[in-house]
């Protein structure tokens, strides 16, 4: 395509760059502004200036020393990680069966999963909270891990099932003839093959655990594994006054790690989403 130097190629390039710049500016302008805000002293956040007149680390000091935000960041990390690992244990075996085993009524099962995608999870918060308190999961990390599954499992089943279904049918049969049990065939052959998809889902679930506010807020207390987004929410709308500069520091702290992880997972993510292209 590069050799063709007709008018459309020029238009083509212009359009592509214009699109790229448009989208990038949608993102970069707000983010660079708030990144700079995090270095402003309290008084300056109420004026619209890009650069702080006086660079200040006060907000950072406050966030680290007084709020001890890093503790909650760590909680978020553990909450997300645990949820991600758990989701794999739930979704992968299930999706494997749905994707590769012929079972009567499978279609109906699958509709049930799909409809589960539609369910407004807001309504699940209270019943789950009550149950969690009863069975001792309240204010614990496992409690959060399990609760987050609501967001991801239907979607994970959908993606993974498609993936498993598209693998050649003889793969596990082959493994079984060559000495694997059913489980080994799954574990030694199917699982390694599904790795890119699994990694992608790990990231998506991690992100959900990291980001979630509603469940984290309801299911934890100040002494438990409270996550960063709850603290952030409280800072934004909970107290008496919005401390913008502090909020922006928290924004950076809570926002950058997932972005880095996303970039690390880039390749796997692309593969995963390509699975569902038809």
């Amino acid at each position, binding site marked *: 395509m590069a050799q063709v130097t007709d008018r459309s190629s020029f238009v083509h390039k212009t359009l592509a760059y214009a699109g790229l710049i448009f989208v990038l500016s949608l993102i970069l302008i707000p983010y660079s502004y708030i990144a700079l805000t995090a270095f402003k002293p309290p008084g300056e956040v*109420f004026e619209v200036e890009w650069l702080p007149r006086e660079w200040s680390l006060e907000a950072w000091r406050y966030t680290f020393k007084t709020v001890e935000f890093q503790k909650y960041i760590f909680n978020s990390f553990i909450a997300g990680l645990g949820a991600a690992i758990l989701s794999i244990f739930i979704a992968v075996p299930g999706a494997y069966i749905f994707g590769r085993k012929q079972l009567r009524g499978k279609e109906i099962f699958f509709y049930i999963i799909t409809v589960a995608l539609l369910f407004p999870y807001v309504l699940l918060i209270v019943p789950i*909270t*009550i149950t969690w*308190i*009863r069975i001792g999961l309240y204010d614990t990390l496992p409690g959060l891990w399990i609760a987050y599954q609501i967001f991801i499992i239907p979607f994970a089943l959908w993606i993974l099932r498609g993936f498993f279904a598209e693998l050649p049918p003889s793969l596990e049969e082959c493994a079984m003839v060559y000495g694997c049990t059913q489980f080994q065939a799954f574990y030694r052959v199917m699982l390694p093959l599904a790795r890119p998809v699994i990694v992608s889902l790990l990231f998506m679930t991690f992100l959900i655990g990291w980001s979630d506010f509603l469940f984290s807020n309801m299911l934890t*207390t100040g002494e438990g594994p409270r996550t960063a987004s709850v603290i952030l929410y409280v800072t934004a709308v*909970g107290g*008496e006054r*919005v401390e913008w500069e502090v909020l922006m520091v928290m924004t950076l702290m809570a926002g950058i790690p997932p972005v880095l992880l996303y970039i690390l997972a880039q390749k796997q993510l692309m593969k995963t989403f390509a699975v569902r292209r038809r």
Partner: protein
Amino acid sequence: MNKELDRTYSRRDFLKITTALAAVGLTTSLTPDLLYGEAGTDLKGVTIDYWNMIGVQNPVVKQLSESIIKAFEQRTGAKVNTTWDTYGSIIGPKYRTNFLAGKIPTVFDAISSWTGQLRSFLRPLNDFVGEWDSETKEPVSWLFPLIKVQNRGFSDADQIYDLPFLVIPQAPVVTRLDHWKKAGLDFEKNWPIKDTDHFLELLKAFKDQKVSEYPYEVYGKIWDAGDTQLNGWVRSLDIEKSDFLNADWTRSNCDSEPWIRGVQFYVDLFRKYHYSSPDSPQSTDEDAVEQLIRGQKSIVHADILNRGTFLKRIPKEVEAGLIQWGPHFPMAGGTTGSVVFQAMASFSITKQTGPDAEIKERAAWEFIKEWFRAENQIALAKSSGLSARRDVWDGLKGAPDHYIEAVTSMLNNPGVWSNHPKSVDIQYNLFAPHIQQAMGGADVATELKAYAEEVNKILKT
């Protein structure tokens, strides 16, 4: 955070906290003597769970809370498991869910008009209050009738379930003196504001002289519309009808004449006079205070909790007397002599069961008493409200912004909001949308009527 509490309280911890508190001019009950003295042993081995909400106000209040908790542990040998929470938790589903599912603290603080929903879980405190030493009880006893009014719809309204330790009279006004000069107004002559007519005159001057485009603000946001200045104005017209609910909680008061007048005036400030910004349907007193600090507003109604913001943002200007507080004022033509509603931060103890129920309740009570110690009451009043103890007020007067003078002068027959089990819904959730509609141009009387109907329906079920 409670891990810190598990450790024995060290001198280093003490220094850390007292230094922090001293920086904002606070002292607490925790003295060095106590640290090296024999710890009290009468509650040794008792553990109570405490859910703290007042700490969300600002970091200073949180540190102060920690200090008081530590002092109590030191003094009695009891152990306190503290959970830090937010107002959203009791307004929202969290406390209800937890209580319902059996996750209940021994003692917690909240706003006293929000605990009606949890009343069946609470233990009445009259016997404890009865044994209180008169030195503490006397200066607090002015609140008891108010508690009774607040609980009037309950069959046991005489019982105290929520003991207020801080009061928040709604709502004083704050102004900045430089605007008065610019507007050519004489502050000495015009302060405090007499009534709403007087108020309109002042606002007109500020606006006409272009001192500020929107010199004032009425609040439409869900949490501020129903508990800042509005009820005070209605109250100045009719004490009986000023609360959201009638005397026996059988119907809403809000479709009555005084309410229509009060809300109409509230809306007029925005729609008719344009003294309040276009953002009024979603504005809050915190926003307004920020704008006052930045010189965009001349007078705002703001609850006393905002004083911390001034101290943090413009400490020098406060010191220099630029910011002045003044009392709330009546509606023109309708002075019943009472223009204030009062929110109260209170302690509640939950009903305990089991063999150690009695000692736990006792420990919780001892814990509450810690908060009522004079030095703690003073410290709290400086950082987060007005102390419940009248006897410490005089000592607080004389600040350059006169905030104590302003607030205490308002406390002549204040009203309180009902502690109906549905009060959060009634006072905020259902009310705000109608106020916002009215601010958007809907007819005030119609909106109030619709609102009253919704409330009446709730009251029936």
